[in-house]
């Protein structure tokens, strides 16, 4: 895919102070493309990228794209077992890792750290691939088995970044700060690729720890930041710890990936000063933001988002009819729609129907075309903006010899919005407590998915028809231990 490497922006890694001016980035993209082309990277061929949050990551990503390959960007904190599952599922041409990566033996694919310049390159290969070739896979669940990978073509990604530029503006994108991870759409496409492809100066400071939150204002002032995006949980930390920026450079802040209360929205706006604060709606299946708006002067209502950023939205009402206004499940048509779930046409057919993507989110569209979200129709758990599918936790736990049955669900949490709770029924005489089960999970799944609230129960509540109802289990457990 012949990307316009001459129009790329600069990347600064805030912690190390390392700066990659656009010419250095472009040159390294070509060097790495030459290096990885030896491994058969080309149109339609997946490449697993298991590092992120650095200039080197973007050089790898753009090198894969230059060759027309499809980059599957995964959480660098995946457990070895999760990485093995994804490698088996994707059969990638190679695994691209950062300098700190250890392991990878037995995966059956070449493991390459292309940041090592001694790894060489050679003559830059010709760009390959076209607009409708697969470009990106982001996994939303199933890293312990049965992976669900959202696949976007180049056309979808370029449509999204073009629309983002249109609705944000290049002046606002001129100096962007990204604190988010780069293995999900919000951080990768919205916060990083949009400014980078627009020639903006991208500042990377990944990490949502307390120290980073306390130093956010200083980073904004030191680098003259004009734009940043993040999740509501980060703002809980920032508002608790950090003083506001004083430099007056901040033009816009986006908040997304989790519900934003009107009170939090107002508090962030007070912190941001002259900068506008926008509540955004986006889904991995739509690349990233598809709707959003600034804090209304009169204050926001609960669940208020904003109008669509290109494309169209409708609601599917109780009778299954699509309506332009009213309440129901939010369905969308957007130029940045995924091509489908990688290798899973069955799952794709469930959500892509007659050209509309069925989001699973409940909401309404008012007379002004403004989108409001009122909740999710399915049971996805949202821990600080990271989504966890409870079915994945059920299946994992049911592989434990002491667990007969498990049912995971969302538990409200003051700081992260939601955390993972689970009800587990153990085998008779099982000599195993919640802590041991938690440690067992911790060895097999990434941190955010490990259940934090455990309910060891004698039986899992069922509906009158004998089915496990997640709502019923959740209500029963939280009554036991609110």
């Amino acid at each position, binding site marked *: 895919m012949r990307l316009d490497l001459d129009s790329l922006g600069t990347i600064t890694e805030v912690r190390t102070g390392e700066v990659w001016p656009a010419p250095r980035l472009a040159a390294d993209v070509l060097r790495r493309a030459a290096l990885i082309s030896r491994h058969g990277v080309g149109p339609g061929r997946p490449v697993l990228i298991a590092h992120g949050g650095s200039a080197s990551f973007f050089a790898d990503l753009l090198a894969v794209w230059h060759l027309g390959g499809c980059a599957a960007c995964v959480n660098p904190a995946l457990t070895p077992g999760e990485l093995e599952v994804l490698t088996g599922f994707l059969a990638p041409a190679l695994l691209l890792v950062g300098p700190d990566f250890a392991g990878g033996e037995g995966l059956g694919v070449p493991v390459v750290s292309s940041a090592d310049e001694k790894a060489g390159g050679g003559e830059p290969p010709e760009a390959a691939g076209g607009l409708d070739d697969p470009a990106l896979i982001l996994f939303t669940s199933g890293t312990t088995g049965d992976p669900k990978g959202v696949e976007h073509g180049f056309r979808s990604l370029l449509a999204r970044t073009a629309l983002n530029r249109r609705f944000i503006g290049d002046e606002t994108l001129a100096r962007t700060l990204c604190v988010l991870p780069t293995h999900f759409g919000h951080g990768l496409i919205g916060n990083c690729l949009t400014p980078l492809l627009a020639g903006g100066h991208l500042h990377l400071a990944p990490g*949502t*720890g*307390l*120290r980073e*939150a*306390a130093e956010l204002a200083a980073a904004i002032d030191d680098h003259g930041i004009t734009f940043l995006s993040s999740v509501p*949980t980060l703002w*809980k*930390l920032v508002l*608790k*710890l*950090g003083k506001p920026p004083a430099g007056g450079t901040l033009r816009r802040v986006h908040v997304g990936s989790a519900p934003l209360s009107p009170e939090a929205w107002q508090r962030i706006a007070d912190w941001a000063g002259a900068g506008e604060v926008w509540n955004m709606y986006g889904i991995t299946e739509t690349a990233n933001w598809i709707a959003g708006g600034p804090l209304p002067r009169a204050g926001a209502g609960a669940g208020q988002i904003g109008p669509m950023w290109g494309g169209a939205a409708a609601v599917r009402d109780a009778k299954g009819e699509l309506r332009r206004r009213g309440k129901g499940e939010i369905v969308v048509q957007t130029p940045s729609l995924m091509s489908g779930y990688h290798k899973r046409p069955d799952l794709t057919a469930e959500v892509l129907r007659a050209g509309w993507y069925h989001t699973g989110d409940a909401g309404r569209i008012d007379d002004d075309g403004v989108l409001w979200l009122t909740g999710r129709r399915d049971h996805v758990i949202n*821990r*600080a903006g990271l989504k966890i599918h409870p079915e994945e936790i059920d299946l994992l736990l049911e592989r434990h010899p002491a667990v007969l049955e498990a049912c995971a669900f969302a538990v409200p*949490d*003051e*700081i*992260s919005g939601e955390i993972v709770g689970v009800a587990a029924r153990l085998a008779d005489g099982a000599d195993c*407590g*919640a*802590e041991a089960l*938690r*440690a067992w999970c*911790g060895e097999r799944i990434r*941190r955010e998915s*490990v259940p*934090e*609230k*455990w309910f060891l129960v004698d039986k899992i509540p069922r509906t009158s028809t004998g089915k496990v109802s997640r709502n019923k289990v959740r209500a029963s457990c939280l009554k036991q231990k609110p």
Partner: protein
Amino acid sequence: MTGARRLLAQALEIDEDGIADDTVLESLKGWDSIVHLRVVLAIESAIGAELPTEEILDLKALEDIARLLDSK
């Protein structure tokens, strides 16, 4: 240390008995910024006062929690 141990056990949903006196918070499985803030809010609730930013950032060990609880 008893009060500190109880507070930490509740915040992390772990067994009190498994928390040693010399526990370093970052070494606990599952420790992250969200749990850190949960512990901070629990301390603030217990002492009835907000902690200054530096105290929050310097909270690194069980004994720091005990010291803050004793400062009530």
